[in-house]
């Protein structure tokens, strides 16, 4: 078993049964992939996440399908790990640089389970519905080419998922029969799910941020009512932090 950034957690004694099943999965995968398996995270009783190199991305799919019996394709997508340059809107009061103060240092890129090294990661999930087990596979997308091999050869269902990932993130899938728009109109520019793609409505009128106490309908001052008008009743403008 190899794990780099995130160590595997210790198993509590009552979870031993499920955990050994996942450990067996991990051993089988690392036995087949060898060096291509660069990270893993096993949450005992809950889930297994495995990270492979981009070059081995399609081979992993083929092995999972034929060698390990994961016949069910669940989904495939991508994550952009770059911290959003627009800050986290909900804390906009915190992220806005006030005059006379220094800008906060840019956040560092951190990755999730099983680690990572590049900005984009593709991840996919496959199930074995006979033995009731599932695994999440991740891979770093090479920064220069933004290309990973396609899963269409192994799982026919990944066709649409890869089209969506291409459209939303701009990641190319080598060997895909036809990467074209699936959701957005043909003239759409940009890749919406990238972190540096702005939501223009929020740039024009930033969310007022966390407001602890909601003003009563009678005695709200002008700023509150103007900012409350920007949101909509169904998004609970001032109840962002309160638990009902």
């Amino acid at each position, binding site marked *: 078993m190899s794990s780099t950034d995130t160590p595997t957690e210790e198993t509590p004694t009552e979870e031993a049964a499920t955990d050994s099943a996942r450990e067996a999965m991990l051993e089988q995968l690392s036995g087949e992939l060898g060096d291509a398996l660069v990270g893993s995270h096993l949450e005992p009783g809950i889930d297994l996440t495995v990270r492979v190199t981009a070059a081995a991305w399609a081979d992993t799919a083929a092995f999972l399908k034929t060698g390990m019996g994961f016949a069910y394709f669940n989904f495939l997508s991508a994550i952009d790990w770059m911290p959003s340059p627009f800050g986290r809107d909900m804390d906009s009061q915190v992220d806005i640089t006030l005059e006379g103060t220094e800008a906060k240092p840019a956040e560092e890129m951190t990755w*999730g389970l099983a680690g990572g090294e590049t900005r984009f990661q593709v991840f996919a999930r496959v199930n074995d519905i006979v033995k009731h087990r599932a695994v999440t596979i991740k891979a770093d997308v090479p920064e220069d080419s933004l290309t990973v091999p396609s899963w269409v050869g192994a*799982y026919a*269902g990944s*066709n649409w998922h890869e089209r969506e990932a291409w459209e939303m993130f701009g990641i190319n899938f080598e060997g895909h029969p036809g990467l074209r728009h699936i959701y957005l109109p043909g003239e759409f520019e940009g890749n919406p799910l990238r972190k540096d793609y702005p939501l223009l409505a929020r740039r024009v009128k930033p969310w007022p941020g966390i407001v602890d106490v909601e003003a009563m309908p009678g005695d709200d001052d002008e700023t509150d009512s103007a900012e409350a008008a920007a949101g909509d009743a169904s*998004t609970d403008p001032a109840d962002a*932090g309160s638990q009902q």
Partner: protein
Amino acid sequence: MTDITDRQQLKYIAAQAADARVNLELETEGMTLNIGPQHPATHGTLRIVAKLDGEQVIAADPVMGYMHRGYEKLTEVRTYPQVTTLINRIDWLGSFANEVPFILAAEQLMEVEAPPRAQWIRTILFEMSRIANVVLFLGDMAVQVGAVTPVFFAFRDREHILNQIEAVTGGRFHPNFDRIGGLKDDLPAGWVAETKQVMKKMRAFCDEIETLVMGNEIFQARTRGIGVIPADVGLQYGLSGANIRASGVDWDVRRDNPCGLAYDQVDWKVWTHPDGDSFSRFWVRLQETREATKIVDQLLDTIPAGPVMAKVPRIIKVPAGEAYVETENPLGVMGYYVVSKGDLVPYRVKIRSASFNNMSISPWLLKGVYVPDIITILASLYFILGDIDR
């Protein structure tokens, strides 16, 4: 079954004709038929571009995105309770079911367990949203095939369920009732007895549909042998829910991985059908609706007392981590892959929606079928556009 063999033959002929066309002197161009994007209300804005040769489809290409609202981007700028409000609207017929996997994923990250009463009530509302959803499917598939009356029965009987959901949550659909750690409120007085009456009515509705629709000669002729999905193809495309169970695959996330919901406390059955055609998908959903009413009855009898909300901080900050939870929603398996960095807002939420996978098989499935069969097949696959387009 002779029907299937005939269709296989027809597919072969269509493929040959498509190749041979360029050599024919009488070169008739195949027609491109545009189905959509305006459908009768229940299916929504789906557009299918079908290349036809006479009455047969050579290639069908669904064009989606007419309801794409950018959910995955919007969840990155909303707090967890706000996301709960938003994701109600993905599968807009059985709305409570959309909240549950997301809340369960967030609870898994926060390592909070909802009290048993909350899990019970969640399961009851989950099953009720399944009934509300599938009841409309039963009426809607009939109207797509040509029988107009059942859809009025469906709307009428759905009102009973919506009344009950409204009595608890305040919203007919889009209840926005689930919270991280439990539920917003407890059940009102008298709700349990009323819901039992409603379940009786829903069983009566199922019987009505069975006598009205399922035995009908025309319905059977239009759905038997149409749109056969072999099990291995269905698995490759990620089909879920009744679509895969109608192909004989015995997989139900409620039984295999309930994730805290109360399914293991009641006695119920998973329905499968070996045929894999449109009729079997209808049949499986009808049986599942009946089963759901029985589940709700059993759960109503055994609701434990106690609080409906665990102790969670007022401002929810979910610790860093990743979690994936999937549940058996009315349309299929729905899952949320929640990536959190310890903020008030999720970092990335990947919404695994059932209808996206269910629809992805349609280019493969619609090759070589007749034009009216397109409607039947799509009706039997049962997708909601909000679920496909997110």
